[in-house]
């Protein structure tokens, strides 16, 4: 597999052959399998939230934040479902990960699992584009190997959803066996499904998975683990990002005009060398940029 050629194809929002995708996923798994449940990242790094298949808005993100070959990125999951280009988006990030594993880090979101993708669009997209479910299977295999959390410079903790009542210290996260389909309950599920709320402690989540957690929980967790900030995604922010609990937790959302109808702006969080924080916001890519050249492949038949 020629990784540069695959990246070239994907960067135009086109899909490589089924065989190339299989090879790409295998190569990605080889890299991801070595990564810990808690990625150790040395700052500077640019943190990004949900993308949800909005490929051209991902391109806007790179136009804003810098080329992925020269800039450090951390994506906090939810690459697929809802947008029209889930496959191209996920594979593009995967290819970039294979090409520069040290520059780009990707975490698992609650949408990176078999059950959810069958309902919210990714499976259908794969079948529509390839005529069968093989590509979806290769991708969900990769999902199982994605890391769960990241620790930036020992002081900033990143996860897709939020905290879990079973996890008091970051070391406990290393004990989880993550290489499986996303369970319905337990610490792994909680971290990808939970939401912060203006309460003090824990509560039942309306989502039906994970929990809601409040001010005391966050302050304790940060104190115990020596953290200055928790960054997470998972919830739409009209302004692209939202601080809570005296700026000890922030939600970063990177899908502008979410689901092509929400009218929100998106944000990325740039963490500097010395852990300085700068938010940059961006809007959806204009109409003229959202063009895909569709290639028609008519299967040949021999008499």
């Amino acid at each position, binding site marked *: 597999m020629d990784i540069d050629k695959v990246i070239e194809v994907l960067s135009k929002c086109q899909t490589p052959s089924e065989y190339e995708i299989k090879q790409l996923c295998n190569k990605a798994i080889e890299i991801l399998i070595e990564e810990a449940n808690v990625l150790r990242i040395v700052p500077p790094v640019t943190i990004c939230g949900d993308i949800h298949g909005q490929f051209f808005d991902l391109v806007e993100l790179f*136009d804003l934040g810098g080329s992925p070959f*020269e*800039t450090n990125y951390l994506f906090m999951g939810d690459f697929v479902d809802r947008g029209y280009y889930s496959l191209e988006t996920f594979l593009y990030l995967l290819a970039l990960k294979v090409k520069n594993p040290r*520059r780009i880090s990707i975490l698992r979101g609650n949408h990176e699992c078999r059950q959810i993708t069958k309902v919210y669009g990714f499976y259908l997209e794969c079948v529509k584009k390839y005529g069968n479910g093989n590509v979806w299977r290769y991708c969900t295999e990769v999902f199982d190997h994605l890391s769960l959390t990241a620790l930036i410079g020992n002081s900033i903790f990143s996860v897709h959803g939020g905290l879990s009542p079973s996890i008091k210290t970051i070391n406990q996260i290393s004990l989880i066996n993550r290489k499986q389909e996303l369970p319905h309950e337990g610490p792994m599920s909680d971290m990808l499904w939970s939401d912060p709320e203006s309460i003090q402690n824990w509560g039942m989540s309306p989502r039906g998975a994970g929990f809601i957690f409040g001010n005391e929980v966050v302050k304790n967790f940060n104190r115990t683990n020596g953290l200055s900030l928790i960054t997470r995604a998972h919830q739409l922010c009209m302004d692209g990002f939202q601080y809570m609990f005296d700026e000890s937790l922030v939600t970063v959302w990177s899908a502008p005009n979410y689901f092509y109808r929400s009218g929100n702006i998106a944000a990325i969080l740039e963490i500097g060398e010395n852990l300085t924080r*700068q938010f940059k916001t961006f809007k959806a890519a204009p109409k003229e940029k959202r063009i895909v050249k569709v290639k028609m492949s008519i*299967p040949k038949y021999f*008499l």
Partner: protein
Amino acid sequence: MSDQKKDDEIYPIAVLVEELKNEDVQLRLNSLRQISTIAQAVGQERTRSELIPFLNDATDDEDEVLLVLADELGNLVEFVGGGEYAHTILPPLTTLASVEETVVREKTVEAIKKISKEMGEDQIQEFLYPVLKQLATGKWFTSRSSACGLFSICYQNVDEETKTELRQLFSDLCKDPTPMVRRSAAKGLAVLVPYVGRENLRKELIPLFVKLAEDDQDRVRLLAVDNCVALSKILTEDEFITYVIPTLKSCAKDRSWRVRYMVAERFCQLSEPIEPEVTKNDLVEVFIGLLKDNEEEVRTCATLRIAELCGQIRVYQDVIKDAILPVIEELSKDFSDNVKIALAASVTELAPIIGKEMTVEKLVPLYLDLLKEDISDVKLNIISKLDTVTQVITIEVLASTLLPVVVELFEDRQWRVRNAVIEYIPKLAIQLGVQFFDEKLTDLTMSWLKDSVFKIRQTAARNLVKLTKVFGSDWCMEHLLPHIFKLLEEPNYKIKQTGMYSLTVLAPELGNEIVTEKILPKIKNLKSDKVANVKLYLAKTLKSLLPYLEENTIQQEVKPCLNELAKDEDPDVKHFATSALNKIS
């Protein structure tokens, strides 16, 4: 012929028969796509006697399959024995012309037209005309609708008597009770116009055209506009004024916005073939009506065509000044964003048409107003065409009027607007000269290199190259390099990268001496930066600068630096350093 041989020849058809019974649509489609191959295999006679009749019975299938069938049938002329036998393909196509799905019918009509091109006049008279008649008098509206598409190709190739019958059939279709048929007829009319001769045009077709333009279905009425365009190409001036303009005027005031929109859309195509005088006398007022239309879509569409129309009547400057410019001024205060965006796009192109004096007096205040709008597409449209305006009004006038406002846009919130301004700067620089540029614009230009948006920093760096080409490398060394070197000391690693990128793109303009003596020492300092991204970018930069360095400099200064980088623990730093070292050896 022995039975064995006969079997061999029929065998491909048997395979086809089997396949077309298959449940899977894909397989049926695939086998249909191979019809030409099968026809070639069985030979012309069997194609005519067996393959085509079989296909005639295969017309009960899904629309997707029928679409492919219609398409393939159109390609079979050479396999049935050329134009002489082309008519044998008509039966299955006739059946397909009556199906429910519009897309299939349209493809069928196309296919019939395609094979008719190969048919001689006799065949058309003998075979195509009966098919057309059958379809045109058919029970279902679908066949009558398809018939409308076949008139033009039939008409040209038949005798006088048949022509009269055809015109009668067409007239009936124009008055058909079903709107879909009348629509197809209206479409067919434009195509038929060139062939009927002036007398029939006046006596028969034009009354039909007028009647269709008064149809109670707006989808039929809007096709009248296309017919106007077709007629404008054929009729004389007087005929056009008498027969077409009244209809056009009523379309422009139609109660349905779609019809009015069509008039705006096709306006310049309409006015192009006719004399400017006629346009001035009769059409300008129609156009102005569209610019003032209630419906935003219509106003937007018309606004986009202002410059083109004024170009057509440019001899009548006073008409432009007295009639059109006042309306334009009103449009700049329109409440709709889309109208203002369209206005911004077309009003810059008006400048060369009305000349310097008028532009300064009437258009420049308009540009100023539009540039102050909060809509980024409006500002973008003005700035990207500002060059056209500058050529008309001269730089002194630009400097005193528009420049201050443009300068404000340097810091616009929308990055695409800033990008457009950056692209415009070098053109300004050429005209303004060094003196003016230094005083007002250098600082702002340099601040773009620290812009928060990556794309802007890249464009700004490339902009420096264009400026250096205008003002020379000495100017660059004196005014730009000190600022760029400061970028290398910024805390943010991305700005350091921008600094290095600027130096890379400027290197060809500055020459080996400056690169060796000024640039190289500065960037080498970055080799001990704590951030890996800076180091990997340094390795890339050193590789790009190699062509501008002397051999001994490379060996003594660059190579040791790269060797150090090649030992870095970050794999990307190692990779780029090694790649640079490989280029040296």
